[in-house]
């Protein structure tokens, strides 16, 4: 079924024509972190240690985390049913009940499928994401539906290098190259059904190279192991300027602690995320808590706009997890299967 969705989107991507104008992906979908814990922790992942899969969000952590590892993950967003309904609607295959149902909720729906493998050694790491499919659909206007959609296919490679001075200060650099093939447009259902609808689905290709430095200062001998971090993410150069994949650098300042608990590992983190659309202090704050006990890791994170709750179960080299994420107009379920060697 998954492959059918992917193929349908690929077919959908085979048009040619007009200049696209549609929704922009949220920063969280552009920051290249397709890992389940990145999605669950949100921006707080840049300051937390409880992140034992894939490369860390902040490259400075590569020098702190001494354990070498290799892991591969498959992550799926579970809005597949909605995607199928949306495609049938746009293909003209829906019936009256299905049309009424799809417009009974007015919310943005996004989804993601990603395969990523990463390899980490003390002070460096590389990660390859040969396939990532991201889509966002939004329908509005029950009288004549307008579709705001973007669907993209990405291939990325990431390299992280880090070092430390005086034991507690770590500095790292992440180089991230992404090739993106996407369609994105805003159109009415009448335009999608009219004779020249192929023009709405022009494929765009974009190449982006991000240069993302990160820093970390950790009081590793203190009781609760507090640490503070800084990172500049999504700073780079693009083959061309687009509304869907803009170069919008964001600064991240965060801190985390690990309060002592009798059993398991508890970590609490907070992050300030500043970019060109940040208007006030509350917009920038996000907090997260993770608790790891045996095979389970529970994650709760939230900002004033969205909340996420999830768990990851790791048994030997296999891991699986599920995360619910919701905001005002959008909610998703993410699932993951992973292998660590």
């Amino acid at each position, binding site marked *: 079924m998954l492959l059918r969705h992917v193929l349908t989107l690929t077919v959908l991507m085979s048009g040619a024509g007009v200049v696209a*104008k*549609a*929704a922009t992906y949220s920063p969280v979908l552009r920051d290249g972190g397709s890992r389940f814990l990145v999605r669950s922790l949100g921006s707080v992942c840049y300051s937390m240690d409880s992140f034992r899969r894939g490369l860390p969000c902040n490259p400075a952590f590569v020098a702190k985390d001494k354990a070498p590892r290799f892991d591969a993950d498959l992550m799926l967003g579970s809005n597949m049913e909605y995607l199928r309904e949306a495609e049938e609607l746009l293909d*003209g*295959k*829906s019936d*009256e*009940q299905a*049309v*009424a149902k799809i*417009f009974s909720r*007015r919310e943005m729906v996004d989804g993601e499928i990603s395969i990523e493998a990463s390899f980490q050694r003390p002070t460096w790491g590389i990660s390859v994401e040969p396939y990532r499919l991201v889509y966002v659909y939004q329908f*509005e*206007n*029950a*009288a*004549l*539906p*307008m579709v*705001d959609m973007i669907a993209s296919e990405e291939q990325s490679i990431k390299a992280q290098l880090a070092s430390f*001075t*005086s034991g*507690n*200060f770590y500095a790292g650099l992440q180089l991230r190259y992404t090739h993106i093939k996407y369609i994105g447009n*805003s*159109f*009415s*259902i*009448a*335009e*999608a*059904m*009219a*004779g*020249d*609808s192929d023009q709405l689905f022009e494929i765009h290709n974009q190449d982006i190279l991000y240069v993302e430095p990160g*820093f970390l*200062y950790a009081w590793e001998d203190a009781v609760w192991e507090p640490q*503070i971090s*800084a*990172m*500049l993410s999504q*700073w780079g150069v693009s083959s061309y300027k687009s509304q869907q994949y803009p170069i*919008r*650098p*964001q*600064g*991240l*300042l965060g801190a985390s602690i690990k309060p002592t608990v009798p059993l398991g590992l508890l970590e609490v983190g907070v992050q300030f995320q*500043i*970019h*060109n*659309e*940040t208007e006030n202090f509350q917009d920038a704050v996000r907090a997260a808590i993770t608790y790891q006990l045996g095979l389970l890791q529970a994650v709760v994170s939230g900002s004033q706009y969205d909340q996420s709750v999830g768990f990851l179960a790791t048994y030997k080299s296999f891991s699986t997890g599920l995360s619910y994420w919701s905001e005002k107009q959008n909610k998703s379920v993410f699932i993951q299967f992973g292998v660590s060697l």
Partner: protein
Amino acid sequence: MRTIIKLILFAAVFALLSCQGKESVVTRESRLSTGHQLIDQRRYGEAVSYFKKLLQADPHPHVKMALASAYAGRAGIRIEKIYTFVVLRDFQAEAVSLEGLSLNQQTENLVRSLARYAEHWKKVPVLSEQGRADVGHAVEVLQQDTNAGVRLYSGVLRVVLLKSVVEQGLQSWGQVTAQSLCSDQLQPYFQWMLELTDTLIFISRDLQGAFPDRQKEFAKYETELAVFKAEAQKIPWPQEKICF
């Protein structure tokens, strides 16, 4: 301590870098979205006023369709009722029973095709007088635009309008035929039929704009309808009152 000061300095530089060049976030899409919300909340009157103002500033096809859809929403046209016409999809309708009839294949196909269209037709809502006025306004808003989607939407709205006019005419005809029928009573129906032909001509034109690759096919229908109308207008209407 010096390390921490360095870190803070880095952070300050990051904050400055990341706050560069604030872009305007008010786009056509966001303006349209504001009006669409009014439609989704069924505040059609406010949506009509909102899109009228927006249309003066931005005569984009999306704005025209949004205004037309606000009128259509106020007229009670729900997308699920007209969706099959928008997508021009063939329904698997119940076939007409043709057993015992000696029809050739061509006629049988025609009857089956009519049965399918009858299924689509049944779903199209019948409008009130105010609703017809609203859809009339919607069609006016759309009439000058050459965008294929606009033309398709215009054609669909005309079909809705056509059904209401036909239904009203047939209802009235049922009342008239209950009594004795005279030529002076028939004349308005003759005019009504010519108006319906005009609507069909407009629909043909809309479809030519909506499907440029099938332009010839729809142009042929338009020509045939125009010929039919011209032939009908040539028929002399009797001067004296004739009753049947």
